[in-house]
């Protein structure tokens, strides 16, 4: 569904990603782990078209995706929940969600909304509240919910559990599984590498902008190098 081939990218001419290869298959949860600054966020930003790759190619759903604009990629079903959530602070929760369905027909919107409300009931309860007054955890749920409104084929999540209480962390990770079960592929960047690997069908270990290891998630979690470097064990 998504594949990166020898992608290099960076900021202001400074390369962060070096010839990165990566694939995500239909209905898969793929985790991306790596040290701080390894380039995980940059990878997601590059896939989403916010950073232009300097070389290499990205294909999504059988078509070239590098060079496309972020909003066009969303239309093609490639949706990201960024690190900082990028909510519409002054808009209400419901408006945020409805904006999530910007590209969808008006009629299907209520249906999608109901699905999101089912997944995160709190969002239905707080429908009229301005997004910026939600607590951190609620904001995270709203961000994921908004992304789901676009009915993505591939959902990319950048550190969805950071700053959440343990209880909410479980809830979010649980929701990710539910999302996958509904047939959406997920590319997950997560600091709680332990959980991420446990959850993932496959995982990549990123080091200085290249993938140094990959394989089924639980298998990597048992890899000594990974344990030493990322799990702090």
């Amino acid at each position, binding site marked *: 569904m998504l594949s990166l081939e020898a992608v290099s990218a960076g900021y202001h001419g400074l390369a962060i990603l070096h010839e990165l290869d990566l694939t995500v298959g239909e209905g898969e949860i793929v985790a991306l782990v790596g*040290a701080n600054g390894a380039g995980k966020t940059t990878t997601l930003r590059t896939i989403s078209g916010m950073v232009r790759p300097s070389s290499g190619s990205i294909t999504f759903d059988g078509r070239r995706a590098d060079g496309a604009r972020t909003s066009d990629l969303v239309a093609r079903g490639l949706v990201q929940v960024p690190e900082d959530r990028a909510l519409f602070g002054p808009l209400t929760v419901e408006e945020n969600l409805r904006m999530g369905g910007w590209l969808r027909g008006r009629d299907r919107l209520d249906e999608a909304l109901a699905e999101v409300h089912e997944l995160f009931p709190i969002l239905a309860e707080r429908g009229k509240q301005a997004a910026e007054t939600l607590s951190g955890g609620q904001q995270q749920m709203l961000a994921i919910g908004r992304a789901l409104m676009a009915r993505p084929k591939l959902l990319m999540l950048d550190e969805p559990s950071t700053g959440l209480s343990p209880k909410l962390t479980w809830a979010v990770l649980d929701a990710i599984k539910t999302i996958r079960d509904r047939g959406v592929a997920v590319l997950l960047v997560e600091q709680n590498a332990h959980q991420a690997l446990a959850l993932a069908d496959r995982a990549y270990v990123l080091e200085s902008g290249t993938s140094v290891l990959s394989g089924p998630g639980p298998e990597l979690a048992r890899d000594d190098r990974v344990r030493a470097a990322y799990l702090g064990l």
Partner: protein
Amino acid sequence: MTATAAEPRATETPLPRLPWNRHLAVLGVLAVVMIPLPLVLPAAQQAVAVRVLIFALMAIGWNVMSGFGGMFRFGHAAYFGIGAYTTARLVAEQGVTPWLGMVLGAVFAAAFAVVIGFFSLRYRLKGAYFALATFAFAEMLRLLATNSDFVNRAVGYNIPLEPESSWAMLQFEPGSPNYVWIVAALTVLAMAASIFFARSRTGQFVQAARDDADAAASVGIPVVRCKLMAMALSAAITAVAGAFYVQYYLFIDPELAFGSGVSIQAILPAVIGGVGTIWGPLIGAAVLGPLSDVTATLLRNPPPGLEFLQGRGGLDVIVYAVLLIVIVLALPQGIYGALRDRWSRR
């Protein structure tokens, strides 16, 4: 640190030395270069040079507060006008030396800046709101001056001509190099003040507070006090520009002193040159000051093929406007900012 962390980018080097001394050295060289300048420039070019340096002074003043301090002001005319009016009133009505007016004007302007600044910070005005509040104060001064007998209402002041050249009264023969020398000296002083300020404790604190006021306060920086000091210095420098303006043009009225055009003139060179940089305002003034003369000259005697443009009113301003837009678009960091980026890239 783990072995897998991103590659180190900086290797172990001794503490880098800050380039302050280099700035001062450049300033010194510049000062020396300026000395013979008025001797070779014809009188008309000297007038342009003086105008450029007055702009530069205003922009240096603006930059101290709005560039280093990040408090975007749109009302520097207030300080300029206070400097100008203090001098004009003292000279025209009391016959006192303009040097005194310059000093007093700087003091008054600084005091005014501190009072207004205090209230603006106290009520936490920010961004465009702050800019427009400062603008409102400048406008209020203009309207007050226009209607106040104390400063001759809208008539303003004519500075009486001295029969002889006089250092005390700051008046010389037309075309005298002294004018250029004096305003150049004032500019060098203002530059030095700006350099010293930027490297001073307060200057560093103000720059930190510009980046993030909450964080600055949290490390123990008295944010309000530092900002007020920046405002005071900024106002004083700008007031000196006003005082010199009066002495050079020998005339001031409320619009010239407090009009919004004056505020824009303080901002333009700084932005073109590079906001928040040491050299930006000076470079910006040097580029912008003569620009309108150049376009006017060009259109007075248009190059072959463009003769039909000659003598069309407004065309020079159009050319100027287009150049302005192009410069701002092409060099968003300003000229000095762009140069610095290029150097540091290497």
